[in-house]
């Protein structure tokens, strides 16, 4: 600290600290905490108070609508023919058409949805399988608006229900404001099994696939009572991580010789040009490199047209529907993030060491294994982490390449859960769990490789 004061002065040091604290807190830590909080919050529509609130609204609407049926003749005289046609016109077809058994010919009004829903015996939002009702839960009188009663009585009942519900709503809201609404319910949604309706044939076909076998082995697919279930959330997660790890390994295998060639096996003059050949694709906007692939893999794209022309196929292959295509394009897009860290470290190796080893009779494999690889371990680790993270978090590649035609990448699942599902808090839970999973994988990998975070600064 004193050193900082000495070389930068109090003012500048304070500015540096303020900036770093703002970065760490406002941009990194607090957003993750907000995310965690969101992930643990039950969605508002599931709260008991919201059920009471909607009962109150229904009862109020019921009172309003019933008011129109109270004195039909009077109303018609006043409104001059506008209300009557609509009132009778709507009432008659529904009377005859719906013909519900409770509705005898003498009923004073047609079916009204709001009045039907205005009952204190109302079902609560609970986990599937669990049943609870508002009146039993909170000890309310069992009131409901009966269509057979005279209309003034109905209005009276609806008013009562409205009052009871309003009271309950305020008390429940107060209670809920004080009670914590946090829980792990949203997280369990990730592992929830979903029943897949399938014919026996389709089932047998799907069971035969090796991916399906692997997934049932780890319990993500199972059969119960003749129905097949899949834990879809976990399945997508497992598949994404599997592909991301494969992409990382493939990139490593592809890139190691490249980095070796540019760093150690060529003259510096030629290395400049080879570097250009690597830097140019690296610097081009990621989206454009993905778009460049569409004209290759389209149904009328390069590969299909060539294969058709040769006569190897008669129907175009649907590359866009294959997860393998997404995999290949991900490797293409992110492979260079592996080259540069390895190159940067290899570049610092003294070539004389290699010469010495050769002179002492080491084989090429041995030189790599004992000299070059240990030296470039940090670069390999950083490259692997970068590639893995990019591949695991890939969103643009599956979105652009597949156009929604094939099964999802986990990042797409998060997007769909957050922006398109009814409960966005589950999306937050997915996202937070994904962060945790990725960090655990990286931490384990760093521990295995004995890499420190400081290597990141060294190899960039």
């Amino acid at each position: 600290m004193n050193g900082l004061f000495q070389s930068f002065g109090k003012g500048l040091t304070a500015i540096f600290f303020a900036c770093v604290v703002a970065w760490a807190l406002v941009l990194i830590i607090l957003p993750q905490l907000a995310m965690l909080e969101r992930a643990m919050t039950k969605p508002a529509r599931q709260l008991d108070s919201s059920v009471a609130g909607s009962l109150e609204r229904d009862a109020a609407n019921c009172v309003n609508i019933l008011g129109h049926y109270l004195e039909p003749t009077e109303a018609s005289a006043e409104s001059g023919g506008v209300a009557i046609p609509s009132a009778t016109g709507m009432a008659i077809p529904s009377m005859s058409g719906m013909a519900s058994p409770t509705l005898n010919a003498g009923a004073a009004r047609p079916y009204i949805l709001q009045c039907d829903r205005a009952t204190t015996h109302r079902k609560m939002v609970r986990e599937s399988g669990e049943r609870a009702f508002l009146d039993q839960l909170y000890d309310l009188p069992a009131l409901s608006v009966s269509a057979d009663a005279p209309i003034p009585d109905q209005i009276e009942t609806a008013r009562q229900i409205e009052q009871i519900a309003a009271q309950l709503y305020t008390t429940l809201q107060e209670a809920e404001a004080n009670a914590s609404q946090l829980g792990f319910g949203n997280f369990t949604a990730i592992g929830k099994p979903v029943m897949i309706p399938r014919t026996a044939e389709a089932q047998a076909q799907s069971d035969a696939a090796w991916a399906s076998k692997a997934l049932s082995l780890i319990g993500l697919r199972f059969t119960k009572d003749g129905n097949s279930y899949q834990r879809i959330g976990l399945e997508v997660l497992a598949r994404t991580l599997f592909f991301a790890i494969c992409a990382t390994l493939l990139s490593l295998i592809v890139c190691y010789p490249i980095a070796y060639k540019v760093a150690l096996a060529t003259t510096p003059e030629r290395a400049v040009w080879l570097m250009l050949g690597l830097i140019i694709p690296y610097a081009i906007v990621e989206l454009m490199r993905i778009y460049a692939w569409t004209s290759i893999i389209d149904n009328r794209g390069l590969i299909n047209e060539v294969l058709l022309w040769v006569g190897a196929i008669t129907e175009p292959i649907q590359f866009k529907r294959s997860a393998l295509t997404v995999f290949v394009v991900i490797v293409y897009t992110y492979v260079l993030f592996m080259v540069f860290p390895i190159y940067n470290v290899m570049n610092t190796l003294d070539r004389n060491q290699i010469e010495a080893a050769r002179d002492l009779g080491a084989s090429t494999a041995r030189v790599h294994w004992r000299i070059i690889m240990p030296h470039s371990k940090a670069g390999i680790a950083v490259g692997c982490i970068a590639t893995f993270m990019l591949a695991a978090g890939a969103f643009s590649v599956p979105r652009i390449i597949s156009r929604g035609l094939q099964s999802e990448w986990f990042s797409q699942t998060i997007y769909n859960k957050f922006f398109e599902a009814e409960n966005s808090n589950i999306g937050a839970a997915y996202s937070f769990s994904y962060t945790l999973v990725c960090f655990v994988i990286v931490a384990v990998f760093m521990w295995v490789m004995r890499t420190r975070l400081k290597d990141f600064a060294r190899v960039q």
Partner: protein
Amino acid sequence: MTSERILNGYMWAFIAFMFAPLILMIVTSFNDVSPPSVTDWRGFTGKWYAFFWMSEADIRADPVLRALDRDRFVACFGNSLQVAAIVVPLSLLLGLSGAVLLTRWRGRANGLLWWVLLSPMLAPGIILGLSALVFWGRLGVGAGLFTVMMAQVTFVAGYPLLILMARLQRQPIELEEAALDLGASPFHVFRRITLPFLLPALASAAVIALLSSIENYNTTMFAKGGACTFATEIGAMSRNPNGHPPVINAVGTVIILITVVAALAHAAVSRREMR
């Protein structure tokens, strides 16, 4: 030596693999057919480029181009510049502060600071966008360009951090000490010695921050709300069941050309410096 020839061949195959899609992209941008294709050649055209300056009447006359919204495209690009105008200076400032503290501060929390500041670079981009959205939404700021800026700064600041740190570690501390001994104020030393020393690194960090801000898709997509940027607008064009318009390939070709020219210029300059 055969092993050397194999390695050479492999190297060229790899470079060909990297460049082949890009070359196809350039070719398709001159083909008069939509969606872009290399196999179905319908004649040379420059209209996918001319889209950006041709008259409204011409655009309406073309069956492919008339479905596109040029003004929106330009506005989104403007948004991108706006975002970058905030993100680049802010991330340079944060990156510089972080680099100074990580290299010079020997406090107890140093190790923790490493983890915290580098974690955005280790996290999947989508999560940064989403958490910025949730966090600022909680504070009452709706999703839009502001959340995009905040989400981008979170990880873009990491690039200046790493670049400046590498440079700071090589800074001769004696210069600074000499200036301090001669009675210069610390601020003066920073302005006259440290900053000039960091200037080349700051410049390259700014370029990298600018590029990564403009091209960022994953993070932006999650934080943007109803707003749009250059990258998200281009990404949105893929959601067309008939394939994307070749205008994208024209834009891509321009980007490729700019990148190639810039890379060649950079290589030429650094070669001259080497001599």
